[in-house]
Structure formats: C-alpha cells, structure tokens
C-alpha cells in the first residue's frame, strides 16, 4: 500500500514544480485574467462596467477559503502523521488565507459602494459572516505568537486551524437559517445570464488566483525555512 501511495504522492505532488515555473504561470494567468475581465467579458445589465470586480472578488474569496482548508489539512497531517514540516506549512497557509481574506474585504467594500452605495452594510449577513471568520483567523496569530515556539505551539495552532474548518460550514448554516428572521432578501451578485464568456472569464480568474496563492505560499515557505536554517546555523556558531 505504502509504495503505491508514495508513487501517487510523487506524481501528484506540487512540491516538485520549480518556483520560477509557478511564478511565470501565475504572471501569465493573471495577465490573461485581466485581459478577459476588461476586454472579453460582457457588461452587466444593471451595474455596467463596475460589475467586473465580481470576477476578482469571488475568485479571491474562494481562494481564501481554499487557503484555510489547506491550513486545516496540514494541521491534520501534523496531529495525525507527526509530519515535521506540517506545522510551518499550516501556518503559512493560514497566513496566505488572511492576506486573501483582507483582499476579499477590500474588493467587497468597493463592490458594495458601487452596488449598494455603502462601503459596509451590517444588515448583510454574508459580510458579517466573512468578517467573523476573518477575525477568527486573526485570533490564530494571537494564539500562535503568545505561545513559546515548540511542540505545544504547533499542537495548539493545529487544533485551532482544525476548529476553523469546522466553523466555516457551521457559520454558513447559521447564516442560511438566520435569513428567515433577520433579512429575507438575498442580493443577487450577477444577473440570470451566468454562462458563456462570463463563466470562461470567471474560471480563468479563479485559476489565476489559485496559482498566485500557491506561488506566494511557496515563496513564503521558502523564506521561512531559510530563516529557520539561518537561526540554527547561528546557534551552532555562537
């Protein structure tokens, strides 16, 4: 079983892709996405040109969730398999998720200003939900950096990241339920004509954001590893 799993692991492993390939791929994809968003996708019927931020906003939001899910997966690997690299990887995943989450809040505010005339609406449940999740993951950093480095910090961070992946669907369920008595209206992000070039553009933007996030993740993890190694070297020399 282990030999076959190892083979599958090696084939599927993204770790083997060199960093410069990833950087080039993300640059190309982001450029393509920008071209599609500005020149190919049709104008929205109600919001006209302004609707185009939707392609980035939604794909960034999805990428942020993917980062949090990746963080939880690495956390599970740390707790379960005792993978020595998993703690740092989990932390970097959550860190990227926080960066993309901040971008979700910013692009969402721009969208809201155009669509609703307000930067932020407390009555919109999706906004509050996302803010709560964002703050939950901000508390991850407070937790992590108020424990001394070591096995206990790795354990606590991993357990907290796992809590997050349980909290996300639970919060979604809570929001769905609360719609009934707080806010009956659902604002439709896009018209009924979701298909054709809109779908193609969205898919390209989504792919671009996912590859960009993975590239940033790899860059950050390479930097963190280098930092750790440098510190060890300093201790040896001192």
């Amino acid at each position, binding site marked *: 079983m282990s030999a076959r799993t190892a083979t599958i692991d090696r084939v599927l492993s993204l770790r083997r892709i060199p960093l410069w390939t990833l950087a080039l791929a993300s640059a190309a994809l982001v450029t393509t996405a920008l071209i599609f968003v500005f020149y190919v996708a049709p104008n929205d019927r109600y919001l006209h040109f302004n609707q185009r931020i939707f392609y980035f906003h939604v794909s960034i939001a999805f990428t942020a969730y993917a980062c949090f899910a990746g963080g939880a997966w690495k956390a599970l690997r740390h707790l379960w398999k005792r993978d020595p690299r998993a703690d740092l990887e989990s932390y970097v995943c959550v860190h990227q998720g926080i960066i993309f989450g901040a971008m979700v809040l910013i692009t969402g505010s721009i969208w809201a200003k155009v669509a609703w005339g307000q930067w932020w609406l407390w009555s919109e449940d999706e906004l509050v939900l996302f803010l709560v999740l964002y703050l*939950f993951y901000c*508390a991850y950093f407070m937790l992590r950096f108020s424990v001394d480095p070591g096995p206990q910090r790795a354990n606590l961070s991993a357990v907290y990241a796992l809590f997050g992946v349980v909290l996300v669907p*639970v919060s979604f369920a*809570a929001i769905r339920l609360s719609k*009934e008595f707080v806010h009956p209206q659902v604002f439709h992000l896009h018209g009924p004509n979701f298909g054709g070039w809109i779908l193609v553009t969205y898919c390209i933007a989504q792919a671009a954001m996912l590859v960009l996030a993975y590239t940033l993740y790899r860059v950050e993890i390479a930097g963190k590893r280098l930092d750790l190694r440098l510190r060890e070297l300093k201790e040896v020399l001192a």
Partner: protein
Amino acid sequence: MLDGLVLAPCDRSAIWLAKSLATFAFLAAAEVVALPLYAIFFHRVGGATIAAVVLADIGICAVGTFLGAMAVATRARDLLLPLLFLPLAIPIVVGAVGASVVDSPGRYLGFLALYDALFAVVCWASFEFVVSE
C-alpha cells in the same frame, strides 16, 4: 491545576468531559433561577426555549472548556480566551435566539444539536493535543 489533572491515569479527553459537565452544572443552576424570573417579568418560556437553552449550554461548555485549556497555555491567557471564544459562540447565539423567537423552532434546534455534536467530537478528539506536548 491542569498540570496536576493531566497526571491522572485516565484518558485525557475524560478531563475535558468532566470539566465541561462541571461548567454545565453551574450554568444549569444559574438558569434554573433565571428562567422562571424571565418568564414572570418578560415573556412566556416554552419548551422550545428551554431546549434551546440546554443545547446552547452544551455548546458553550464544550467549546468554552476546550478553549479555556488552550488559553491557559498561552502568555496572554485572560485576554485571549474571549478573543478565541467569540467567533465560535456566534453560531450558538444565532441558533438559540432563533429557536426562542420563531414559531417552528425545529430547524434551529437541529442546528444547535448539529453544532454541539460536531464540536463535541472535535474537542473530544483533539483535547489530548492541547494538554500534552
């Protein structure tokens, strides 16, 4: 105190369960007094509200005990616990408030039960990693 409890020759998760039950007893004792007063002064308290309060108590105790054990291990223990707990408590508040105001509270109670079950399982499974190194 937690360091001493960890020495006990039993499953670590049993400590979490015992602490949760103790907190639950405290909360239940307070509510046995508070709910009749609430019924007298404010609004009728029906079966759905009581069920919602019990389910919310279970969630608060399970998650609160767990995060308490987590926060004790950090430097900013008193400051960190509410920060960690608030986002996790919001679904409980939504479910419990919903169950006590709508006419057919079945879905809210179901949601609270789901929350309790999910987080109880996660806490039970991962408490050992919180108290041991």
